[in-house]
């Protein structure tokens, strides 16, 4: 067993750190109000080639690990723009299936090409029912044309730009991603039945992405709170000199470390091929159960971070409130906790513990 992060990914993570420091750490409020990154920041992001990493799979599962860790790293500074500029992230799993599905394949001969433009966006949604007419979904990139891939409990549905209605949206977080509400109109949608394992894999892939965003954001919040807590004096001691606070931070750190390891493992076990239900189910179990835990942990950690800063933590002068909002908003994307729990209930019977011989 080797749980070390491969050396070749370290350079990417360093590049992400440098990008965050240069473009994000001082400017995230501006990007939020302008609903986009600056041209310079977009250029810097493109140089990371993260989008290419996402669309390279499934040729090499290591690409998924690199992309997941990079997302974590970027979200630990600011995730407000990730859903826009890292367009392929959550949707790429669904697009992958689309390319192998006959009717969708015909319609979307090269769905990956959609990812790398600012004129076209491929959104991904989860619906608990097959009837999606008049249903509303969240997309990003308010000015572009939107294609939607929607995973229901039994099928994958494609909705083209002409069948969608768009409206700018306020989400409470991620403003720099230019969120948009997408309503499915009277449609000529194409629907294809997909088996449980494949469908759950698609959703789990989106959950892996959102887990990396939530855990990254929580990690950023905790680091900020630790720095503050070492400096700020209350009752004659630094905030973190009080045992109750120090223990609380230690608990947060433990949760994040454990889940980051699980994130790494889940990303490493990204299925090499779609034909193995066993591999798909194992990945889905890890990614979806991680997602449930990441929601709880990220909410807890950002809550603690805000409390450690007290009133300062509630103000926009500090980034902690932003992390707090991002985690909560992110936790509702792609069907949220309930959808994941439903899938996990079924997976429970299908996946055996990989560490039990």
């Amino acid at each position, binding site marked *: 067993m080797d749980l070390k992060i491969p050396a070749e990914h370290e350079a990417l993570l360093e590049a992400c750190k440098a990008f965050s420091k240069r473009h994000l750490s001082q400017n995230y409020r501006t990007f939020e109000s302008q609903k986009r990154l600056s041209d310079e920041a977009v250029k810097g992001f493109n140089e990371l080639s993260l989008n290419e990493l996402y669309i390279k799979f499934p040729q090499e599962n290591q690409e998924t690990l690199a992309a997941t860790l990079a997302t974590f790293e970027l979200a630990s500074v600011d995730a407000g723009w990730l859903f826009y500029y890292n367009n392929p992230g959550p949707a790429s799993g669904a697009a992958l299936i689309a390319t192998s599905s006959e009717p969708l394949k015909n319609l979307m001969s090269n769905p990956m090409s959609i990812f790398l433009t600012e004129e076209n966006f491929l959104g991904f949604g989860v619906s608990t029912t097959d009837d999606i007419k008049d249903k509303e979904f969240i997309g990003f990139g308010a000015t572009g044309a939107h294609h939607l891939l929607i995973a229901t409990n039994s099928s994958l549905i494609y909705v083209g730009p002409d069948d969608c209605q768009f409206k700018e949206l306020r989400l409470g977080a991620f403003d720099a991603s230019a969120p948009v509400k997408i309503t499915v109109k009277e449609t000529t949608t194409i629907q294809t039945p997909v088996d449980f394992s494949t469908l759950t894999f698609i959703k789990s892939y989106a959950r892996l992405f959102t887990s990396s965003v939530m855990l990254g954001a929580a990690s950023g919040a905790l680091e900020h709170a630790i720095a503050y807590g070492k400096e700020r004096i209350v009752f004659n001691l630094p905030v973190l000199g009080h045992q*109750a606070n120090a223990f609380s931070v230690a608990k947060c750190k433990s949760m994040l470390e454990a889940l980051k390891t699980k994130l790494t493992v889940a990303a490493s076990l990204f299925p090499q091929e779609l034909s193995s239900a066993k591999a798909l189910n194992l990945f889905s179990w890890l990614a979806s159960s991680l997602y449930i835990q990441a929601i709880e942990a990220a909410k807890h950690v950002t*809550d603690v971070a805000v409390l450690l800063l007290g009133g300062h933590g*509630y103000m*926009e002068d500090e980034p902690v409130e932003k992390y707090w909002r991002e985690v909560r*908003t992110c936790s*509702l994307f792609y069907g949220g906790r*309930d959808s994941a729990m439903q899938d996990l209930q079924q997976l429970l019977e299908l996946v055996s513990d990989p560490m039990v011989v």
Partner: protein
Amino acid sequence: MNIEISKSTKDAIELVRIIGKEYLRPLGLEADRLKRPIPKDHPFYFMVAKSGYMTQGMGSEEPKTSKSSSHSEGSVRSVLVAEEGSYWDRGALVSLPGPGLGGPPLARMGTPEQKERFFAPFRQKERPVWAAFAMTEPGAGSDVARITTRAFKTKGGWVLKGQKMYSSNSPRAEWVVVFATIDPDLKRAGHRAFIVEKNTPGFEILRIEHKMGLRAYETATFSLDECFVPDENLLGEESYYESSQQKGFEGAMAAFNSTRPIIASMAVGIARCAYDLAKDAYKDIAIQAFRRKETVLEKLVEMRATIESARWACLKAAFMADAHIPNAMEASIAKAYAPPKSLEVVETACEILGEAGLLNDSIAEKLARDVKALDIVEGTQQIQRRVISKHLGLVLTSSE
């Protein structure tokens, strides 16, 4: 045991419900969307002034629980009214004209003359008037003993020097209760409370804070630069502080014992709103997504049970205040319990609503941002646990 509330309290709740639906909710949502407070010359505030609402929080006109009861139910009423108002919009509720958090210290510490003089503007019904409270400083939040705003004695009064922050409604206040110290080395024994009136030279609003939620009212930082305050504006006058070494600090803490259950109940009101949103959504879920039905129903049961236990914690602390039973621990229990539990309820409601909770400018997302503030203001969870530990006789750290 009698859990009946008086008719006048029921009437007060009903009035807030009407105002809440018609004004507090829409004004609060608009302020949140525009990211700016409700303007102080908004016609709604004049209507509120005309209604006589501004006399709330003056420590008078407290109704009896029942004919046979020996005590009033002023605190219980405040808790229930605050819950109802926050159900509609906590930010807009706090923005309402009246003495606000400045009321309890004046009512508790002020001389009869001071009460008469400074509460007088709230008895008129012509125009909206606000008051405010200021304790927090850049270097002293939870640890109020560390405040450094100085009060220097001078002929005929005091000179105040320092900076206060996170003071709600202070930019529009007629007066602000400011806590300062005559000597930082005296710690709590050095605390004094002053009424600083609007337009006092040296009193300057430095900035309006940008908050994550509760945007309907202003939260400000202000400076006191050689700010002269006459002797008659020292709350309780010197004799009040001579009776006990920590009288100023105790006055502030006593005010917290009154207001903490109210803050806690505001969280309960927000949780109730979230519960109702989720309950409405359940009807659609039950029809459209039957697989989720049982899960959602179970969550609704837990949410409602949580709301009720949080509410009773608030009401017990309020009842004790009305019955003149020391309630410092119970006030802190209410404050330590209700806001985080209410946040859980709101987050569960968001889960039930799913992405729908994020669409159409949903209130649910705003409720989560709003309720989080109640876990912070008037003492964070850590501070409440500290108070509770102390009352349980537990040993605190060597830094005490």
